């Protein structure tokens, strides 16, 4: 099996880069020891230290030289891809971590939420228990960024609580991003727009229109600080047109909503239009005839 040292050496030789060019502030001898797996690779390779090789730290994770956590298992939590066995596996993994000494607010949060999501799906329940709602509210207060796993868990929980509560889970992230919009990354802004879409959808389902309006205003503010972003723009406009239609069920507002959903034929990859239009039909917002009659 190829090691990280083997990988560095292979790339360096393929690019005809001498040891001295990689060394930087290190000695060529220490780079050679990296390559021969004689010493541990240290944190100063993150950032620009590997520029002479054209290596990005992302290459090390893609090739599994540096292990990221449970990337794929978290998808099992989303309602549309719920996989009880996979979620139970995740839960056991975190419970084992706690028993082996990693008993922290993070691992307690994960286990409690996984237990709650399993209960909700098993009982076909509609609402989070009050103590779990409070746990999420306490946990998210003051967070200025979410890890991927936290984001997946919190967005899954949004489905089972009032929009008035879930918008408070979004607020710290929003305040952090919009407090420094020029510095916040596009990745954070995209995540915020996706979160906003989930909260706005939840507000639409529970007819919490004040919250829906408030969430849409937040999304519009974020969107205005970004270069054109088709998915972000879609997330905002579909909820904005749904809001207009729910406030005033005119033919024009209905047609505007249909028009936005029709854009998924070209904005999203193949196949997404069918699931998005069927969702709108299943909620009773639109009918199959709306899409059959649409010009595009």
């Amino acid at each position, binding site marked *: 099996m190829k090691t990280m040292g083997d990988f560095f050496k292979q790339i360096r030789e393929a*690019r*005809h880069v001498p040891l001295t060019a990689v060394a930087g502030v290190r000695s060529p001898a220490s780079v050679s020891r990296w390559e021969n797996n004689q010493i541990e*690779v240290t944190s100063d390779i993150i950032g620009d230290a590997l*520029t002479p090789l*054209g290596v*990005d730290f992302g290459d090390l994770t893609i090739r599994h030289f540096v292990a990221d956590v449970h990337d794929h298992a978290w998808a099992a939590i989303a309602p549309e891809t719920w996989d009880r066995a996979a979620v139970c596996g995740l839960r056991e993994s975190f419970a084992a971590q706690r028993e082996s000494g990693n008993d*922290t607010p993070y691992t307690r949060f994960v286990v409690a939420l996984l237990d709650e999501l399993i209960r909700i799906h098993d009982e076909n329940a509609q609402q989070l228990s009050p103590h779990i709602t409070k746990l999420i509210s306490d946990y998210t207060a003051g967070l200025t960024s979410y890890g991927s796993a936290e984001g997946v868990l919190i967005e899954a929980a949004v489905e089972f609580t009032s929009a008035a509560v879930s918008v408070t889970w979004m607020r710290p992230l929003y305040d952090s991003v919009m407090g420094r919009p020029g510095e916040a990354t596009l990745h954070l802004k995209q995540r915020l727009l996706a979160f906003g879409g989930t909260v706005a959808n939840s507000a639409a389902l529970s007819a919490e229109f004040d919250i829906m309006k408030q969430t849409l205003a937040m999304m519009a503010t974020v969107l205005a600080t970004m270069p054109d972003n088709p998915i972000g723009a879609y997330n905002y406009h579909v909820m904005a047109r749904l809001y207009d239609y729910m406030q005033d069920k005119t033919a024009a507002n209905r047609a505007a909503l249909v028009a*936005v959903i029709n854009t998924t034929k070209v904005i999203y990859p193949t196949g997404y239009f069918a699931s998005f239009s069927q969702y709108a039909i299943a909620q009773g917002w639109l009918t199959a005839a709306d899409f059959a009659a649409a010009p595009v």
Partner: protein
Amino acid sequence: MGDFQTALGEYINIYRKQRHISIRALAPGRDTTLSRFLNRGNKVSVQLITDAMRRMGLQYADLAGDFPRFNAPFTTAAENLMAHRYAADSSAITAIADAYLGETATAKGKIAELNRLVFEHIKSVSEAQQMSLLPEATQAAIEEVLADNADWLIYDYLLLRLTVGFLSDTRVARCYLLLKRQMGQMATGYQHYANDAMLQCGIILLTRRLDEQLADFYSDSETAQAKIYNFQDALVFNAVRRMIAGRVGSAVSEETLNEVFAATTTVELPQVEGYLRRLLAAANGEVKGVFL
């Protein structure tokens, strides 16, 4: 580099503190070493950081997205350029190129030198709004880098993505073949970098009206589309495929993009619409646009 280590340690430390997790819980038995990294930016093993991050659910993918200086400067600059490509805002392009050139001014080696040449060229083309090829020696160096490494990295995909528009027709064709060879054997994590490079190749083939290669691209891109194309580019990807499919002789009519322009109007994407209109004009030989 010391400053970077300090900033990275500080970022991870803030993440930890917001979750009320002790340093001891993250690095049992090695908490003093980890503390020196988190608080002072002292160099530590990558494994120690990886283990600590795993214990609080922080992924490297999160760092790459949320901590702007985490990626290699070339990756950061390339991704920033790509995010701003529809706007055709030369001041934004110049700022991104200048930031890269400033940050890597002292970097040594042929890759670093090549990268600087690439960003200087992008900057000059953007400011002049005048398409021009890279000097022949730089083009040759790019092709050599791509050909020499049989196992492409993020860098190689991004290098092709950024420079294909500044290569000669014959080099575009050869580099596209190199890309296709990689796409048949690459690890899954490289898919979206490869897709970005492939789409840009298609855009350049379209603007140069290279019919033979366009037919190949159209066929190849069908496979990419079936594998669920990168979401952020699905709109432009669909538009490019429609323009290729809708060509009559060497002309593309605006009607080909009716559905696409309906979408850009409906969800208010004026920058994307402007970009596609410029692309349409270039595909019809009316202008020689700059497509970053």
